[in-house]
């Protein structure tokens, strides 16, 4: 279980204090798929980076399985919005980076990297250089790199944000299948309400100025979601309208 307790973040921006997140409380169960949704600048990326220890908290605590998290937890891995594969490494060596740090021997590293690449359908391109890949392929490698270390918690920051609708849909289904297979906890940032409804079990709605958590919505739709057209499901439409109204209403006042 991952608990975010009363976490705030104040940045210094243009010489002034800027409250990016105000007292966020959020509990994510083991194996849960949770989406963070909200308008641009409401602190979604900051929330993920706080959880992963990439950005220091102003106050509050983050607790994983009863233990307070300090520094950068090795049980979590991050899928970055702009992937940032290392251009001097082959696809496979990029996926190995987390395993290297954890001292996994070379042969084992290669095996696990290939396995992770196979899970995202990239096993054929393991020798390519990153610049030889399309955007969608790079995105898959970014996911493979994160799952190769077998994390307890997978943090994903708009991983499909740059992709076309077609590739996006394919990867959404793949991520769902991967999640069911691996049973990891996933925290997934998106600003696309439909994507959030398709993927998650619960959606955390955020608002800006100051960035804060306003509500957590249950997505009580049947699984597996790839077996029917989620968008046409009456409950999904209801949820969509409710969430859209919630986000817009707050933006108005």
């Amino acid at each position, binding site marked *: 279980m991952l608990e975010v307790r009363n976490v705030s973040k104040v940045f210094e921006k243009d010489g002034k204090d800027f409250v990016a997140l105000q007292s966020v409380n959020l509990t994510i169960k083991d194996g849960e798929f949770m989406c963070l949704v909200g308008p641009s600048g409401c602190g979604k990326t900051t929330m993920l980076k706080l959880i*992963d220890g*990439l950005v220091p908290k102003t106050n509050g605590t983050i607790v994983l399985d009863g233990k307070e998290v300090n520094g*950068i937890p*090795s049980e979590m*891995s*991050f899928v*970055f919005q*702009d992937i*940032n594969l*290392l*251009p*001097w490494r082959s696809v496979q060596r990029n996926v190995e*980076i*987390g395993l*290297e*740090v*954890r001292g996994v021997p070379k042969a084992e590293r290669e095996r696990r990297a290939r396995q992770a690449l196979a899970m995202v359908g990239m096993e054929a391109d393991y020798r390519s*250089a*990153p*610049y*030889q890949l399309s955007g969608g392929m790079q995105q898959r490698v970014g996911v493979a790199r994160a799952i190769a*270390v077998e994390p307890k918690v997978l943090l994903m920051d708009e991983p499909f944000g740059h992709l076309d609708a077609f590739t996006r849909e394919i990867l959404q289904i793949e991520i769902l299948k991967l999640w069911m297979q691996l049973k990891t906890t996933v925290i997934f940032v998106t600003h696309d309400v439909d994507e959030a409804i398709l993927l998650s079990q619960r959606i955390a709605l955020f608002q800006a100025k100051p960035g804060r958590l306003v509500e957590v919505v249950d997505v009580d739709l049947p699984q597996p979601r790839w077996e029917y057209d989620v968008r046409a499901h009456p409950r999904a439409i209801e949820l969509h309208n409710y969430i859209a109204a919630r986000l817009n209403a707050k933006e108005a006042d």
Partner: protein
Amino acid sequence: MSQAQMDIKSGLAAQRAKRKTQATRDNALRIGAIVAFLLVWYLIAIRTNPILLPTPLAVAESLWQMVVSGQIFGAFLTSFEDLFGGLILAGVLGIGIGILMGRYPTIEKILDPFVAFANATPMVAMVPIVIIWFGIGYPARVFFVLILAVWSILVNTLAGIKNVNRGMMEVGLSFGLSEAQIVRSISMPAAIPYILAGVRVGLGKAIVGMIIGEMDIALAGLGGLAATYGDAFRTNYLLAVVFSATVFGVIFVALLNLVQTKWYPWIAGVAGRQVSE
């Protein structure tokens, strides 16, 4: 074979042929430019006093004389030792200190004024003090090459380390890389294009340092030969020696290019210069 496959095949052939004609044209241009240069030189030289400007043929002739007598080889070897020693030291110190300054802001703050100062100082004027410190032997010449070449390598390395994309750093941090692992696996490779550029600039300066050291610290190597022939107004020999020194630059640059294409093919892959490719 289907029509589509045939189309692709002929397209590919055209693409390759285009690249080939491009390469041939580039080479023709290069050779043409050299021939034109030699021709102009020749035409001016035959109308000039040979002490002011000998013809290219006279220079080639002198070079051949020095090859036959073996004189040029000894000088070449001495110069190579000066250049190589100084350049290796400059590389190790420049890259090493550049990385330290790039990673540790405190070290950067302390050393930055010194580097800026040294970079702006005309090191060529340091000959007398180098002689006072190191005498007139090999160490003095190597030190002189070092103080000419090291700054551009250092400054470029520093810039490279500081400019590492923030996103890549976050990848390293997120996967739990230690400081040493970040330097080795992220900062260093990311800075390689800058470091290579710094070494290129440093090489040019090192050759200047080599020649001046050999002329002004003690007569030795190619610089020594050039000074001797120059004092004797034997301009044809002087130019032959100068062009021999050019060979160093050409060889080292070719070596750097080879290193870059063989070891760091991603630099060209990521760069946007040949977008049409």
